[in-house]
């Protein structure tokens, strides 16, 4: 084995050992599906899907280091961002379009979500819930911009410019006629717990939300 190849082997995540929330995303995806992962980072989810579910996976990632890491691991990934580069994809090109934890960092989240449900027959979207009680308490008691495991950067350097609560997101989907097929509430570690996402407690207790969406009927 050459040194290069050994490096690649070390860097490659072992299938199965992925972040808890990504494992949930993966559980929503059928084997053999065509998947576009928008904001795929270093390819953790894609690599898992390609190697355990035999999906035809593609990715888009903003950071060059992320893209290069993906391609080094044999994944099909292009450099691009959700705001500008989703328009090019034909409608219905994928079974699933995934946007995990990147929604608040987009310039136009509404258009991004609309594009996701256009490109994919289904879209899977997860995001940190700004209505979580810790977030609320931070602002209420400390008077500081909230920081948590999911919102880990201070206000002056956070990429998150469009934060929302679970309720906000549900309202947007309702307004745009996007159907919510499944929703899961998660704690800070990405572990699921059972709560009706439309209810007040979910918006207070869930650190993040994960939604399976489908495009509006035309």
């Amino acid at each position, binding site marked *: 084995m050459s040194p290069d190849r050994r490096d*690649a082997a070390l860097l490659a995540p072992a299938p199965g050992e992925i972040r808890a929330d990504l494992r949930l995303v993966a559980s929503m995806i059928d084997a053999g599906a065509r998947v576009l992962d928008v904001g795929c980072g270093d390819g953790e989810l894609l690599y898992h899907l390609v190697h355990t579910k035999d999906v035809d996976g593609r990715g888009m990632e903003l950071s060059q280091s992320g893209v*290069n890491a993906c*391609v080094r691991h*044999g994944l099909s990934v292009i*450099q691009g961002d959700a705001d500008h*580069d989703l328009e090019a*994809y034909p409608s219905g090109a994928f079974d699933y379009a995934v946007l995990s934890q990147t929604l608040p960092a987009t310039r136009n989240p509404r258009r991004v979500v609309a594009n996701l449900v256009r490109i994919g027959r289904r879209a899977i979207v997860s995001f940190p819930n700004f209505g979580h009680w810790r977030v609320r308490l931070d602002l209420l008691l400390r008077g500081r911009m909230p920081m948590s495991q999911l919102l880990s950067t201070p206000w002056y350097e956070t990429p998150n410019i469009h934060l929302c609560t679970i309720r906000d997101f549900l309202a947007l989907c309702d307004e745009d006629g996007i159907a919510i097929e499944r929703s899961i509430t998660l704690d800070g570690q990405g572990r699921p717990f059972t709560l009706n996402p439309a209810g007040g407690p979910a918006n207070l207790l869930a650190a993040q939300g994960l939604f399976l969406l489908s495009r509006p009927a035309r």
Partner: protein
Amino acid sequence: MSLLVPSPPVVSPVTDRPGSSLVVKEAHVLDCGVTLGPTTIAYQTYGTLNADRSNAILICHALTGDQYVAEPHPVTGKPGWWETLVGPGKVLDTERYFLICANVLGGCMGSSGPSDINPATGGVWGLSFPVITIADMVREQKHLIDHLGIEQLFCVIGGSMGGMQVLQWATSYPDRVFAAVPIATAARHSAQNIAFHELGRQAIMADPNWCGGNYHESGVRPGRGLAVARMAAHITYLSEQALHRKFGRNLQDRRALTYGFDADFQVENYLRHQGITFVERFDANSYLYITRACDYFDLAAEHGGVLASAFTGTRTRFCVISFTSDWLYPTSESRSVVHALTVAAANVSFVEIETDKGHDAFLLEEPEFHATLRGFLDGCAQHRGLDHP
């Protein structure tokens, strides 16, 4: 010392060229409408073709490249132009893949070109050789691939003009290409690209020794013109940072300016050297024909002006690679190829490699580029069912 680039000696053509050649007996109609043939394709191979002929990689060389990818050049003795990438255990692993590289149609290293004898007249073709295109080059290469009995190439790869051939292959013969790697290239030649080529051609034609293209018969060579063409082109292959890092304003073998037009600066000396050594191995008329082929390249034009249409329904896996400091074929050109592939829902990867080495980066030791390419090829090999050696 001469102020001009010295005129190099007239070199007799290499007759004993290592490698193989194929004579294509049937005549073929070129894009310009002229029928040409029989033609000769000079090529080199490395590694071994496997039993089911599924491990072949076609390497397409750039404007001034040739088939001597991974061995000393028969004229200059210098290492092969892609030895950083091609060899046992390297990214283009000769123990795993069967690598093929053919001198392009119009070239001067054994494939049919303007310095050959025109059988109809018995004289050297010169400017009576028909103008060729990138598509003509690729059609010629397809004869070779057919001859080698390869139904589908595992990969077609190349940088610069080589990348144009890759794109042409992938659109002309999509079923014959499993994976395509166009590097530091574009789907069309820009006005700036054409302008630089025209500068080079004018330099050649302005050399009195060019003799209207009939220099072979006059026993002279337009060495100065060709050297100037090379010098101008060479600047476009480098970045401002790379030139500065390498030479700065350093003086050449002297402590002070000479207040004359001798090569005071190292960069001048370097360019002159590039010009002179190029002339030893390259034919001026070939330079005219091959630069013209690049200028005429416009993949979208073949498909109603819509680049995406060129890739409709393609099943080829693409890996598009560009370099940050390449201003000759900038990342924006690669991006439009990626955009078109995306619209066509093709399987595409795209990486832009951070480097200050300019366009030439694809020929140089660039670890990130090599690691990315290795990952892409490994992934493709897995899908193609190629075993690791």
